[in-house]
C-alpha cells in the first residue's frame, strides 16, 4: 500500500513541532474529514529558512507534511508556491490513489502559510 519512503516519513517525520513567532502560520483541513495540517514557516529575505508542522491525519497525511516541510526549506517564496501535491507525492515514491487527497492538504498548507506571511508583510508595510 504505502511505499517505503512514505512509511519512513511517517515513522520518522522530519520537522514535527512549532516555530515560536513564525513568520507564516496556517492550518488547513477539517477535523471532520480526519485531516488537519498546521504549517509554520520562518522566512528571511524571501527565503524559507525553517519549516515545521503538526498534523492530525493518516499515514499519508503525516508523510506528506514531513516531505513538504523538507521540500520548502531553502526555497524562495516563489519557488515554494510552485510545489504541487503531485510533486510531494512523487517525492514520496507515490501514494495510493485513495490517499492522493491527503497530499493536496500539504500543498494547501504551504500556500496558506505563505499567504499568511505575505499578508502580515502587507499590514507591516501599511502600518
Amino acid at each position, binding site marked *: 500500500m504505502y511505499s517505503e519512503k512514505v512509511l519512513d516519513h511517517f*515513522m520518522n517525520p522530519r520537522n514535527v513541532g512549532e516555530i515560536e513567532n513564525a513568520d507564516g502560520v496556517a492550518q488547513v483541513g477539517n477535523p471532520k*474529514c*480526519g485531516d488537519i495540517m498546521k504549517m509554520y514557516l520562518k522566512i528571511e529575505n524571501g527565503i524559507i529558512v525553517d519549516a515545521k508542522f503538526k498534523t492530525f491525519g493518516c499515514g499519508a497525511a503525516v508523510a506528506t507534511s514531513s516531505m513538504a516541510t523538507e521540500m520548502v526549506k531553502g526555497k524562495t517564496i516563489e519557488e515554494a508556491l510552485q510545489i504541487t501535491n503531485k510533486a510531494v507525492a512523487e517525492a514520496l515514491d507515490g501514494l495510493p490513489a485513495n490517499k492522493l487527497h491527503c497530499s493536496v492538504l500539504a500543498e494547501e498548507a504551504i500556500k496558506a502559510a505563505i499567504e499568511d506571511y505575505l499578508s502580515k508583510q502587507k499590514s507591516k508595510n501599511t502600518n
Partner: protein
Amino acid sequence: MEGKIIYFDHAATTPLKKEVLDEMMPYLTDQYGNPSTIYKLGREAKKAIELARERVAKALNADIQEIYFTSGGTESDNWALKGVAFANKDKGKHIITTTIEHHAVLHPLKYLEGLGFEVTYVPVEPNGIVDPQKVKEAIKNGTILISVMLANNEIGTIQPVKEIAKIAKEKGIIVHTDAVQAVGQIPVDVKDLGVDLLSLSAHKFYGPKGVGALYIRKGTKIHPFSHGGAQEKNRRAGTENVAGIVGLGKAIELATQNLSEYAAKLQKLRDKLIDGVLSKIDYVRLNGDRHQRLPNNANFSFEFIEGESLLLMLDMKGIAASSGSACTSGSLDPSHVLLAIGLEHEVAHGSLRITLGEDNTEEDIDYLLEVLPEIVSRLREMSPLYESVKKGGN
C-alpha cells in the same frame, strides 16, 4: 517480539483452525466429486455437505432442512433482505433496521430503497444498544421485515433480538438477524431467539473465508438469490464449495463445543485490556456498552489522534488491529456506527478496535498496554488538536 505478530483483529477474520483444515483436505484432493452427480465420488461429496448441514443445524438449534449454504455473510444478508423483500412486496414495502448494521445489511437496503421500498433506520442509544420499544414504534401497516444484528462488529454490543422478534411475531412480521459476529462468541439458538432468518460466516469463527450460511425458518416466504442449478433444494444455485462447507461445519461444531470456556477466557483478557487502557491513557472513551458486549471486543476512541496513524504505528510494533477511521478506507466519513452512538467526527476518527481470539494471551495484553500509551502520546505530540488542549489545559 521480533517477527511475531500479535493478532488483535479477530472481528475482521480469524485464522483457520488446524482441525478444520484437516477435515477440509480430502475435499481439496481425492474427494473432488461434484455433489450433484450420482456416482460414488459425487455421493461422497454430497454426504460431506449433509454432515456439515447437520452440524450447523445442531449448533443453532435449527432443523437440518432450514440451513442453506452461501458464499459468506454478505451473501446471506443480501439473500435474506432482497429475497424477503421481493417475495413479500404484495404485503407491504416497509422494512425496519437499525443505524448500526453492517454494510452488508445497510447497502442492500439502500438498493431496495431505490427500487421503491421504504426503510426506517431506528437509532441506537448512546451505549450502542437499540431500544426494542423504538423498534415497535417504527412498525406500521405494510412493515414486512425487521433486520437487527445480534452483535455489532465494531463496538461489540449485543442487541435485544429476542425481544424484537417477539414484538414482530405479534404483528406477523418476518425477522432477520445478522449473527455473523455473534456465532462462536455467544450462544445462538434460533428457536430461543425466535427469528425467521439468521446469517453467519465461517471465517469469523476459525473457519474458511468465502463460505457462510443462511438459516431460513420453514415456511418463510423468500425468493432465491442465485438462480440456476437445483442445489440447496433449488434455493441457492451453484456448484457447492464442498471443502469450504465442510470447513464451516467443523468450525461451528468446535466453536459451539467450547463456547463458554472460550468466552470466559477472552472476557477476562478483554476486561484487563479495558481497565488498563482507561487507567493509563487520558482523553479516552470506551465505545459500546461496558457489559452487554461480545467477550472479545474492546473499542476505544482516543481524542486528538487519527486511527490510521495509530494502526500503522501498532503494525510497526507487530500488532494487528482495526479502526473506524475513514482514513483507513480512504473515504470521507468515519464509521457510521461510531457516529450513530453520538461521537463527533473527529473523535470517531481516533478509534481503535481490539478483538481477541484464542491465540491471544495475557502477555499480548501486557505488551499492548506497554506500547499503546507511547504511541498515543507520540501521535498527540504531532497533533495540532492536542496542542490547543494542552495550552488551554495548563
